[in-house]
């Protein structure tokens, strides 16, 4: 699966969506749309949130699944929350 770039490789600013297309009828929509906040996170952080969601938000279960301790997983979640708060500003 191709990795979605979210940061400009030239100036490191967050990228915008300027074109969307339909793979079925080839309709193309052009414009300027912001990336949703979750997509602005790193793929690793997105995977973590996805796992967390699938395990009904249980930090203990996710710790067991990824083989890390509870405080390590809680710290990871806190760091992601901090990043999201920064992105929301």
């Amino acid at each position, binding site marked *: 699966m191709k990795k979605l770039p979210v940061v400009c490789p030239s100036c490191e600013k967050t990228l915008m969506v300027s074109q969307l297309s339909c793979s079925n009828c080839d309709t193309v929509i052009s414009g300027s749309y912001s990336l949703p906040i979750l997509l602005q996170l790193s793929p690793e952080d997105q995977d973590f949130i996805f796992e967390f969601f699938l395990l009904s938000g249980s930090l203990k279960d996710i710790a067991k699944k990824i083989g890390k*301790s509870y*405080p*390590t997983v*809680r710290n990871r979640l*806190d760091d992601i929350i901090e990043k999201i708060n920064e992105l929301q500003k």
Partner: protein
Amino acid sequence: MKTILFRPFERYSEKTLVIVGVAFTLIGSLLGAAFQGRFDGVLDMHFVPSTSFYQVLIDNAINIFCLVLFLFLSAKYINNKTRLIDILTAAMVARIPYYFMVFGNINNTMSKASEEIMQLVNPEMIEQVGTSSLLLVIGFGLISIVFLIWYIALLYNGFKVASNAKGNTPIALFILSILLAEVLSKVLIHYLN
């Protein structure tokens, strides 16, 4: 391997760490009694003429209590979500390397060498001090420094994981906590044990 030796707190559950911590506190106390080593302060280990399992166990309990008290207060200040159990496991597990230092006194080796070195205070007896005793004490001193660094590295990693510490303030608080724990443990061990 590096994780087990320096960063076990990142991987293992609190249940595993409590079992390992309690087991090694008991083993360390037994070793202390067997080789006459007392842990009479958070950062101390001294060889004495005689001691008992309970005396060494109380030393260790006081040391762990003092470490937990000050590190938990600092960790709570850094991050309110810090759990007591994570600081307790950090204190218990980090002390494991220190317990192995008592092996230096197998057959009273270090006690005898230290006694001989103590004669240095009497200038007339200097010539009687053997080179082997000097080398033994210096070698043990160097090994002790390695074990002390290992102990502090483990303790800091445990503290860091428990409190999600970042930046310089937590390092300063950590150092302050260790120093306060050392002072309190010395006082408590002196009066209670």
